[in-house]
């Protein structure tokens, strides 16, 4: 068993586990296809366009983006009942990548389009992504 991703991990094995290992070192890494140059986020180990074996990892430098949408989950899955309510958001980085995380604080006053930054929390069992309003 490798590192656990997020608040509750369901998938323990993946060719794309480097994403989680990098996150634990506070870097965001993802893949692009060597042949067609398409970028994948979340990372994919395989390109569904080229069916070629080559993807390469690269670091996403941005830490700030724009809030695309959000919701506060009141009725949660069994594994998350003790955490609810929690606010899930998606922000878009300048690279065109959309990233999901838990928004720090409540949704009060939040608006689509607000500026956010990514805060990676390193825990003993693995990394968690938070989004914080700027």
């Amino acid at each position, binding site marked *: 068993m490798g590192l656990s991703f997020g608040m509750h991990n369901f998938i323990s094995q993946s060719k794309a586990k480097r994403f989680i290992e990098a996150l634990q070192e506070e870097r965001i890494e993802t893949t692009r296809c060597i042949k067609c140059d398409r970028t994948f986020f*979340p990372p994919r180990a395989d390109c569904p366009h080229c069916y070629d074996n080559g993807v390469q990892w690269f670091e996403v430098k941005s830490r700030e983006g724009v809030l695309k949408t959000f919701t506060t989950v009141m009725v949660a*899955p069994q594994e998350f009942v003790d955490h609810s309510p929690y606010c899930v958001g998606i922000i878009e980085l300048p690279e065109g990548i959309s990233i999901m995380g838990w928004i720090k604080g409540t949704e009060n006053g939040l608006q*689509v*389009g607000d500026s956010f930054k990514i805060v990676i929390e390193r825990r003993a069992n693995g990394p968690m992504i938070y989004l914080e309003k700027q």
Partner: protein
Amino acid sequence: MRVAVIGVGQGKFGRRDDANLRELAFEATKAALDDCGQTINDVDATFTGIASDHFAQQLQPGALMSDYLGVQPGPNYRVEAACATGSAALRTALMAIKSGMHELVLVIGVEKMCEVDTNTAVGYIGRGGDVQWESPFGTTFPGNYAMIAQAHMARYKTTKEDLARVAVKNHFYGAKNPYAQFQKEITLEKALNAPMISSPLGLFDCSPLTDGAAAAILTSEERARNLTDTPIWIDASSVATDTMSLLDRKTLTELPASQEAARIAYAQAKTRPKDIDIACVHDCFTIAEIVAYEDLGFCSPGSGKDFIEEAYIGGRLPVNVDGGLKAKGHPLGATGLGMLKELTMQLRGEAEAGRQANGAEIGLMHNVGGTGHYCFMHILRR
């Protein structure tokens, strides 16, 4: 070759503490066979739509259907496409008849969602998203559609009151449908003051967890002419797929799979949105009905909120006058076939008093799987 729907049936949708998966399926199958005067021995092949083995705690539920419905030793194919499972089974059955491999078929859709508790069920449905990259954040299906709603509200000034108006409409018609889970009208105030499920979606913005089954008997044109005076013809069947994860979508205010399925279906049936007389659209959440109006071309992008009043009987195009998923209920595998039963009754002129659309000739059914991972559409004509 044309294919006809000659029989339809369903049992009561709702929390069915009195019946299990197999018994629900039997109710609908018997009703569909009785509707067209056929017996299970007349059926060449069965197509079973069940979305998840988890809810009913039964693996290989297709085999269970073969057994309990008396299909054996005939063939039975189990089909799955999330919340569009029923329509996927319908389309598969249609392909089987068109291929000439089978001639008279049973399509059965069923789901027993209330065998497990609510949080467990919410968790299972949530895993219809990307389990590797989204589920670790506790995403749910209300949560995913809530994020679509939030984006739609920000871009098009759709309001929570607009969402509530969809719920009011669908409960208005659910109250007239004896098969509906909720047969009670609600007020705008009640919808707006309901507990939040996943903001901005409250309790009345969400379809419920439902036990239920619906079934249909399909056959070739030649056979249909001999068996019934009221065949309902399937003029179009389309499907389109899209990304699993919302993170991969360029836009969150529309479902590209719906737009593509609609384009194909309208072309096949040689119809335009304005030719449609009655529609069942996939209102798993109130926002989904508003987005469907736009994706299916009933109105322009962003103006879905202005179409709600037009979706009553007497308006431009009655939509979900069976109560929709919202009030009739949403037993995942059965939902598409529930739509087929509703439109068949409407096109025959046999819907209950107070919710029969006048002189409907062309009906459209729109069944979405996941958050637009799939969209299946069918256009029916009497």
